[in-house]
């Protein structure tokens, strides 16, 4: 804690205090307050309760309804999946005991493990699984593509059901094992029959933890208890596959809108685990006794900067290319992440280090002169560029000023409009011109698992206003290439299609990849057994 004292004394010097006076005060107060109050304050803390902080608090409890990482993580605690994936993104049976594929490659047959129970005491039946897949399939991008190819889903008996395809499709298991949002969680049929555009508010799953509805305060805390009737698989846990053994009795998920507060609480031992500690505090956290900072996930985040194709100037390809060339990933990452240990430049649109990673089509590096020239060629007339900035989330908001600076460097007229993230989510949906609250650029970041291929990476869909991602990049060629990819079952050919897509996307600048970063977990050193994977899951985790 030396560093803290030093910093603090620095801050105090500014206010005119002297250190010696402070220590006198400290001493006096310490004796007055010693122990008694604090001892009881944390008496409830014990080894059977895990207190965690995730990037945001839980408000919506239906993981098929809301597309957000924390809700997915909540889903993994409460619900189980038919398949999980291992650390090589390979689907592995989870609830499913056996499965088979017919020789015509059209009929998948699944048998559930015996004895699986929902938290309301009923047994998991195949009818529940079919209903759950249907609901998910009406919502998820990959789910919809799957459903387009499904002829029927049939309940054979209580523990067996089949999926019959119209044509062979290679990604059936990848789809239902999918770890990115939305995850096809299994819930009871009575709940799964709810339309997907309507929230399910009752939380009944068959996962290793039970949701304690009575203690749920939306935005404040969510409480889970070990589900005694859960039967874990016998394999060791890897990612979302293998045995999910609950090793704590209770998990309290505390909402903390301010990540700095979360870090402080961790250092003070008030919480055990912080999913996304503020990157700039990592040094301090590392130096704090009793706190471990470790990149357990091994799944990074990928920055994406989206230009709006509908509004000038970025309705012009040349000017979009100027944007691409003006931006230095390193600047973005330095401002956003700071510590080089946790970021790397990455030009691959489908995640560096993944099967489809490639540098095809990407420029060699930023080139200000060329960017200026392109701007001139594109006939830029000084139209105002409006950048939406999420000022309440540091990791989000930090990108915008760097983009603004880059565009100003090449002579563009830029205005950064700060807003809270929720407003940004709304504003980015506005297709109107700048004058009517429209926008030119916004940025976000995707977890790697969400953009591993051209199906899930919506930035290259090319569907424009017709179901395309915000920015509404439209290109026939991209749309048909994507279809080719879906139909193609040969891996080598798939890779070729991916290269074509990426080349095309870079040429058109559907969006600008702006680097990759990892966020390590920070946790108390008595927390053991955290698993790598797309997000924090808390089976296998114990407290010493």
């Amino acid at each position, binding site marked *: *804690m030396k560093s*803290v004292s030093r910093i*603090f004394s620095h*801050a105090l010097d500014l206010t005119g205090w002297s250190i010696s006076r402070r220590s006198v005060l*400290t001493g006096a*107060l*310490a004796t007055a*307050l010693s122990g008694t*109050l*604090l*001892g*009881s*304050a*944390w008496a*409830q803390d014990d080894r059977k309760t895990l207190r965690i902080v995730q990037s945001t608090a839980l*408000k*919506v409890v239906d993981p098929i*309804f*809301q*597309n*957000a990482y924390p*809700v997915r993580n909540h889903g993994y605690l409460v619900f189980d999946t038919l398949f999980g994936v291992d650390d090589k993104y390979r689907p592995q049976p989870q609830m499913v005991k056996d499965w088979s594929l017919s020789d015509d490659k059209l009929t998948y047959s699944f048998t559930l493990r015996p004895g699986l129970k929902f938290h309301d005491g009923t047994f998991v039946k195949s009818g529940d699984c079919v209903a759950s897949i249907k609901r998910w399939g009406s*919502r998820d*991008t990959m789910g919809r593509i799957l459903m387009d190819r499904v002829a029927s889903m049939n309940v054979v008996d209580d523990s067996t059901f089949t999926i019959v395809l119209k044509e062979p499709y290679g990604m059936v298991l990848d789809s239902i094992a999918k770890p990115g*949002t939305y995850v096809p969680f299994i819930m009871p049929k009575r709940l799964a029959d709810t339309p997907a*555009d*309507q*929230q399910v*508010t009752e939380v009944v799953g068959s996962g290793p933890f039970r949701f304690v509805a009575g203690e749920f*305060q*939306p*935005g*404040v*805390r969510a409480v889970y208890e070990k589900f005694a009737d859960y039967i874990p698989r016998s394999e060791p846990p890897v990612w979302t596959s293998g045995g999910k053994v609950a090793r704590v009795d209770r998990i309290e998920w*505390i*909402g*903390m*809108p*301010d990540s700095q*507060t979360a870090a*402080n*609480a961790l250092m*003070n031992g*008030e919480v055990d685990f912080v999913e996304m500690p503020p990157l700039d505090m990592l040094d301090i956290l590392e130096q704090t006794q009793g706190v471990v900072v470790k990149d357990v996930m091994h799944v990074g985040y990928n920055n994406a900067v989206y230009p709006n194709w509908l509004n000038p100037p970025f309705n012009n390809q040349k000017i979009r290319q100027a944007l691409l060339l003006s931006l230095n990933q390193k600047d973005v990452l330095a401002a956003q992440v700071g510590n080089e240990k946790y970021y790397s430049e990455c030009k691959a649109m489908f995640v560096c280090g993944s099967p489809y990673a490639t540098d095809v089509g990407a420029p060699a590096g930023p080139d200000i002169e060329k960017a200026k020239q392109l701007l001139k060629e594109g006939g830029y007339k000084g139209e105002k560029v409006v950048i939406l900035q999420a000022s*309440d989330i540091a990791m989000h908001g930090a990108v915008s000023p760097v983009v603004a600076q880059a565009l100003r460097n090449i002579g563009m007229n830029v205005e950064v409009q700060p807003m*809270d993230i*929720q*407003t940004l*989510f*709304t*504003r980015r*949906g*506005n297709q109107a011109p700048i004058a009517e*609250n429209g926008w030119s650029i916004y940025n*976000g970041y*995707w977890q790697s698992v*969400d953009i591993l291929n051209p199906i899930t990476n919506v930035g290259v869909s090319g569907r424009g206003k017709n*179901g395309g*991602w*915000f920015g509404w990049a439209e290109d026939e060629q991209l749309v048909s290439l994507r279809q080719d990819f879906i139909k193609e079952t040969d891996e080598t050919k798939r890779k070729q299609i991916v290269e074509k897509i990426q080349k095309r996307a870079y040429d058109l600048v559907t969006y600008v990849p702006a680097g990759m970063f990892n966020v390590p977990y920070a946790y108390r050193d008595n927390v053991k057994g955290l698993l790598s994977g797309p997000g924090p899951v808390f089976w296998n985790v114990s407290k010493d």
Partner: protein
Amino acid sequence: MLRFLIKRLIATLPVVVGVAIVVFLILRLAPGDPAAVLAGGTATPETVAEIRQKLGLDAPLLTQFFTWAGLVLHGNLGTSIITHQPVWNLILQRAEPTLSLGATTFVVSIVFAVPLGVLAAWYHQTWVDRVVMIISVLGFSIPAFVVGYLLVYLFAIDLKWLPVQGFANISRGIGPFISYITLPTITLSLFYGALIARITRASILEVLGEDYIRTARAKGLRESTVMTRHALRVAAGPIISIVGIGLAMLISGALITESVFNLPGLGRLTVDAVMSRDYPVIQGLILVLSLVYILINVLVDIAYAVVDPRIRY
């Protein structure tokens, strides 16, 4: 008195209705969209549109307003768009931390600020007065979040005496309750206490010029008796009324303080609701807050009448 109170309450009805309508309109004019919030950050535009339709947010404003007003008239504040929980439950869940913070701040401020204000007036234009005034101006001048962070670093992180964040229900015991509420209370009291100390000083200085103070001195009373029994008693009226208005300001102050200390109170609920455009929650909150505000004012009137026999309603 009772008649006056009823009258006051009835007179405030139009205010509440007006506030409800204005808030409703402001919110609906805001570009935010709960559907987008609800769907999540990585949901596609199609999904958002589906949800918007489902929520009935496409309906004309007037229809939406009357639907809501109808519910309220039946004593139902509706359900949150985001969490699907009854608004009334949300408010009750979050009321305790805010009420606790309000109560402790109120008590701490008065216990410290009133005597300080009296001292400052008593030793008017001496160093005592100046010190009190400087402290109170500082209390006004430093933003609550700066004070909050300073306190957290000093008492929670560096010294580890008190928790960084959070709240313990009083049912968990007085010890935990106090340890969690102390820092937020100090933060808020610094501001609120500064206000009270200033008013106390000013009100007493005003009263000190009155003839009955001269009478009291002519009676040979001790200066301390003159200050408390005579000056403070009379000054109590104005002090109470400002303290009452100040209570309403506490709500604003609580907004910031609750964020800094992660107190799950009404302030945070309000900010969250505004940020996520959770219309029913915001509307319900404003309605409840205005009623509380009015109630506080009525209580202030009663208190004023209790301390000052000249006031008769």
